[in-house]
């Protein structure tokens, strides 16, 4: 199918296009030069007076996996809030707001103009389930990051300081379970949680039984990441998440890998939850300034904000000990699980309130991070769906970073103490539309190493979002409602060269690719490690290694990304 998107204001930061009026030509699912398509046969979309940008990329959104399924079971009340109707031949039905059905996830992302989403935490043992669910999500392209920090094999190699073997093991496991990058959640704490501890573990505390420290785990995995040349950096959820005074731990974690390699070497995820100053909840203060200062000065860290949204949310994380603490704060529902020899997880439904000091400050801290970090390439937009709020609220977050007036509208109603303590009311900065495109499309695609995503150059995947925004008429600072309206329902979303959304409604269901990493090289070491793993596997796991590995044919649309290991 050939498509020509005509006369739109094109935003493409990777190719340095800033609002120029251009035509975008699409052929066979790729973006091509306008001369290559037959205009008389092609479907022409008139985008004059509209904004054309690459499809959105979200590198941190919990959209699949056993924990999400448990969340769905735990929250029947969530299914009353939202309902999407079945339209024969077009889309499936579904329910749920913070824990939506698989169908709804794909449709709502596409409706907002997002086309690539990554599930950021899946225990390797449960990844078969994650892939089953990812396969069921329509339209979007996806990938998943396996949790590797508390894996017993990794901890063993970390304690032996054997980088080669650790790299070979991770190369094996990424290919075996079709993962994409290394996810680290509160390094080491899941192991302590199986002893009933794990809350408030700092970066230099010892983790039994291998007696490694979180710092060693992070450093080793960062080095391994460099050895394997993985497309994404290490993806860290830092220690002491959600504990006042944790910004120091976050800075310490950032500093711990400062000397490894050059260029970006770590991504700190949902940094808002890790940027608290103060000593206790009543004396909570914003630590965003120190973090922003460090990130501005040093080029090796990127982060995403993990903005909270006032209203209902379902927190689900592999940081099980923190969820236990959270359960004692909310006294509602709680679920906890231990994944043998690998990880743990917990789920607690929460509600963020405007009048609560802590929640209001959390809201401010997320936006402070986005606004105090000068380079939009270093800070990405997420709500850590569904921990901070549902992904469907991205348009509001965009309006808050683009308009001071929109922020003040919310700040008027928040807790007065929080208003006085936060830095946000004094920040005047407003993002331009170009910055927002960087933050939501170009930067995440570049950071995740997805070369064919996040831009509209020749050869890129034909993932295009067209919004009803005329940048020459709309002033986002004043007309923030129009920005919200436009981003909520894209005028048109093109995925893989097919029109999937038109006038804000889904018109076609297609299924996207699942990216995973295949590491070439290190064959000798890989075989050695594999035989070692086979020996241990019977001792440590209740499943056979053959059931653990996932074959290509088990995925709907696997797409290997080849990387070559150095050394």
């Amino acid at each position, binding site marked *: 199918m050939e498509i020509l998107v005509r006369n739109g204001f094109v935003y493409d930061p990777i190719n340095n296009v800033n609002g120029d009026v251009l035509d975008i030509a699409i052929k066979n699912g790729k973006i091509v030069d306008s001369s290559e398509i037959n205009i008389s046969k092609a479907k022409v979309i008139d985008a004059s007076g509209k904004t054309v940008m690459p499809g959105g990329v979200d590198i941190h959104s919990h959209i699949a996996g056993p924990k999400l399924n448990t969340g769905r079971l735990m929250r029947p*009340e969530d*299914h*009353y809030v939202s309902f999407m109707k079945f339209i024969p031949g077009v889309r499936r039905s579904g329910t749920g707001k913070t824990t939506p059905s698989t169908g709804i996830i794909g449709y709502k992302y596409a409706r907002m103009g997002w086309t690539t989403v990554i599930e950021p935490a899946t225990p390797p043992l449960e990844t078969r389930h994650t892939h089953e669910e990812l396969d069921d999500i329509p339209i979007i392209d996806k990938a998943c990051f396996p949790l590797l920090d508390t894996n017993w094999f990794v901890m063993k190699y970390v304690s032996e300081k054997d980088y080669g073997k650790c790299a070979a093991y991770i190369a094996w496991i990424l290919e075996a379970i079709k993962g994409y990058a290394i996810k680290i959640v509160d390094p080491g704490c899941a192991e302590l949680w199986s002893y009933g501890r794990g809350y408030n573990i700092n970066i230099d505390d010892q983790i039994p039984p291998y007696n490694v420290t979180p710092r060693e785990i992070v450093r080793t995995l960062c080095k391994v990441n460099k050895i394997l040349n993985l497309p994404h950096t290490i993806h860290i959820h830092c220690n002491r998440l959600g504990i006042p005074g944790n910004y120091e731990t976050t800075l310490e974690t950032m500093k711990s890998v400062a000397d490894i390699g050059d260029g970006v070497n770590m991504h700190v995820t949902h940094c808002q939850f890790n940027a608290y100053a103060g000593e206790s909840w009543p004396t909570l203060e914003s630590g965003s300034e120190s973090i922003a200062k460090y990130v501005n000065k040093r080029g090796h860290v990127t982060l995403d904000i993990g903005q909270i949204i006032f209203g209902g949310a379902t927190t689900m994380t592999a940081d099980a000990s923190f969820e236990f603490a959270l359960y004692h704060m909310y006294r509602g529902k709680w679920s906890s699980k231990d994944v043998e020899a690998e990880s743990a997880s917990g789920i607690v439904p929460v509600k963020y309130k405007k009048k609560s000091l802590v929640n209001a400050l959390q809201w401010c801290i997320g936006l402070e991070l986005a606004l105090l970090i000068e380079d939009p390439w270093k800070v990405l937009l997420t709500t850590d769906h569904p921990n901070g709020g549902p992904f469907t609220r991205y348009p509001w977050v965009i309006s808050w970073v683009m308009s001071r007036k929109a922020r003040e509208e919310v700040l008027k109603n928040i807790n007065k103490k929080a208003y006085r303590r936060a830095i946000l009311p004094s920040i005047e900065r407003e993002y331009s539309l170009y910055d927002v495109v960087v933050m939501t499309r170009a930067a995440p695609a570049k950071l995740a190493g997805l070369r064919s995503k996040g831009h509209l150059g020749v050869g890129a995947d034909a993932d295009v979002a067209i919004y009803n925004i005329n940048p020459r008429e709309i002033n986002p600072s004043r007309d923030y409602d129009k920005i919200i309206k436009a981003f909520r329902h894209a005028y048109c979303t093109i995925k893989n060269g097919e029109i999937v959304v038109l006038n804000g409604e889904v018109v076609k269901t297609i299924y996207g690719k699942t990216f995973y990493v295949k590491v070439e090289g290190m064959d000798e070491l890989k075989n050695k490690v594999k035989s070692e793993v086979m020996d241990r596997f019977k001792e440590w796991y209740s499943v056979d290694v053959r059931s653990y590995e996932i074959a290509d044919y088990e995925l709907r649309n696997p797409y290997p990304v080849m990387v070559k290991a150095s050394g």
Partner: protein
Amino acid sequence: MVEIVLTPKEVFKVLIDAEAISPDKFAGKTIDQIRSLRVYEGGRKRTLNDLFNVEGDVGASPQEVNIIINGDVGKVSRIGELMTAGRIVINGNAGHYLGFRMKGGSIEVKGNVRMWLGAEMSGGQIEIHGSAQDYVGACLIGKRGKKGMKGGTIIIHGNAGSELGFSMGGGTIIVDGSAGALPGVEMIGGTILIKGGCIGKAGARMTGGRVVICGDPGDILPSFYIDEVRPNIKIAGVTYQGPFYTFIGDVLADVKCFGRLMVRNIPSSQQIYINKILS
């Protein structure tokens, strides 16, 4: 008296959504209009005439509508949904959600019914000559400010399934046979009378209302406390001879213990302990 008679044209193979079969929907319509009412067969759009032979006549207002269904409609859900008046008689089995959210009128079933009988109803009367499955007079799971049945009467001459009267707020449920597990779970008000026994855990997390069990109550939850022994109790104008051991609870749900659990037979394992307290 005018009647309208519905006879199934075939043995139904898939579930049918028929909220159209209700005196409120039929009232004041001609027979042709009634025949063309929308029902869903497994998600496919059908008319009432495709599935039933419809004969007879109806009155102008719901009070004057008498619906007789001759035949097995065990796969037909949501009959009598939101009805406010009138009468439905089913000579056979009925499906899920019979009398769902009904406000008045009466329903009589000669056979058995499936789940969610009289769920969230606020008035009217339902009489079942056979048995009912789970969630009689319950509220849908996950509903905010949850409250199940708020008023009216359900009489089941056979047995009832599990979670009878789940989070029920008012009205009366009378079961002549026995019930499954957890009768009166999360109950707020109203009365449940089970003339037979139940599997156990009666009144779990109840904060009001009363559950009366004449037969074997299974085990009584440890969060219930014995309060008194009553010689007899009166429910819906009928006196039942005791003695009834009255427990208060559930202390885990509400320390004020407004819930009442009355049983005629105490399990033998708890007999000695309770006698000691009472003496």
